[in-house]
């Protein structure tokens, strides 16, 4: 091994550290600015949007949240290569289930091909006070504190307008990068409404911002949609349990495969 070959990893390591520093020095100030600007401009934006489209407030806020997420993707884009694939198989309405690796996963959902998406989450995201009002206005579902009838009713309303409901069925971010056990909510909703599940696999956000860290790292993030899963294939009172197992198995296989496979479409 010659000297230049031996020095290459050290140089690459230094470059990566510089890139990571630049990412953190630019991202946090710009994110703060983007959030503050968004909060200040949102009343006027909402009003203009309402006057121009006549949409219901929830739908408008959901689109506005999507723009917010897209802005954050743009901010990190010089340092984070983002790819998506399989999106042509997504038909609406649908229930999206996504594996959960990082706080940043939610923002990458702005890259979905449609933006009328209600997030079904636990109680804690509603405690981020700067987002709470927008989450309420967007009719996001607090599955920990809502009655199941209410979850069904809100979801049905969205489905009739060709919208989607998105779950992180693991409930929490994975600390190991491995897929955790799934909760039943998304699959029960699918079984009761007949709306198909679209499994989404996200990779790379654990490199970018793993749980418990605040220092961002450059990464390659991929969002891959798997073929939809029809609840009609899982009949019976425990059909949702079988569906949950099947979807989790599909996602686990796909995530293992995705580590080494090329993706096609870059955002």
């Amino acid at each position, binding site marked *: 091994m010659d000297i230049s070959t031996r020095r290459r990893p050290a140089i690459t390591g230094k470059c990566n550290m510089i890139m990571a520093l630049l990412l953190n020095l630019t991202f946090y100030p710009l994110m703060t600015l983007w959030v503050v600007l968004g909060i200040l401009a949102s009343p006027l934006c909402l009003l203009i949007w309402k006057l121009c489209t006549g949409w219901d407030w929830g739908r408008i806020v959901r689109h506005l949240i999507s723009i917010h997420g897209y802005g954050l993707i743009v901010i990190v884009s010089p340092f984070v290569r983002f790819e998506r694939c399989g999106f042509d198989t997504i038909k609406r309405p649908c229930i999206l289930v996504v594996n959960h690796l990082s706080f940043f996963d939610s923002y990458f959902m702005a890259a979905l091909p449609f933006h009328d998406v209600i997030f079904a989450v636990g109680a804690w995201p509603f405690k981020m006070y700067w987002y709470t009002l927008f989450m309420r206005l967007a009719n996001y579902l607090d*599955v*920990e504190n809502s*009655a*199941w009838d209410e979850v069904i009713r809100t979801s049905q309303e969205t489905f009739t307008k060709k919208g989607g409901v998105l779950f992180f069925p693991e409930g929490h971010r994975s600390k190991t990068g491995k897929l955790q056990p799934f*909760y*039943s909510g998304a699959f*029960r909703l699918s079984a009761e409404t007949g709306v198909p599940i679209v499994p989404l696999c996200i990779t790379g956000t654990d490199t970018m911002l793993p749980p418990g860290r605040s220092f961002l790292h450059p990464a390659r993030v991929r969002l891959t949609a798997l073929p939809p899963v029809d609840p009609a294939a899982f009949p019976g009172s*425990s059909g949702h*349990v079988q569906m949950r*197992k099947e979807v989790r198995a599909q996602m686990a296989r796909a995530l293992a495969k995705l580590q080494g496979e090329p993706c096609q479409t870059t955002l």
Partner: protein
Amino acid sequence: MTDQQIIELINSSLAEEFEYQGGMTPETSLFEEMGLDSLDVVDLVIVLETAFDMKIREEEAIRSIRTLGDIHKFVIAKKRQTESA
């Protein structure tokens, strides 16, 4: 429905929902032994509501449930209360 039938339905429904294969006695702890957490409690409530066709989410007593035996007692009492109403 007898108490025993209620207990059997609770046990089978929970074993299926949470894919639990361990022993199920009234002393079995939901959190330590069955490994449930706060989000699982959401699923647990829905399972019981569906199995017994009753609303229990708003019940204060549900918050103090810790063992399988607590669930048995709670559901039996609730069923008897509904039947006598």
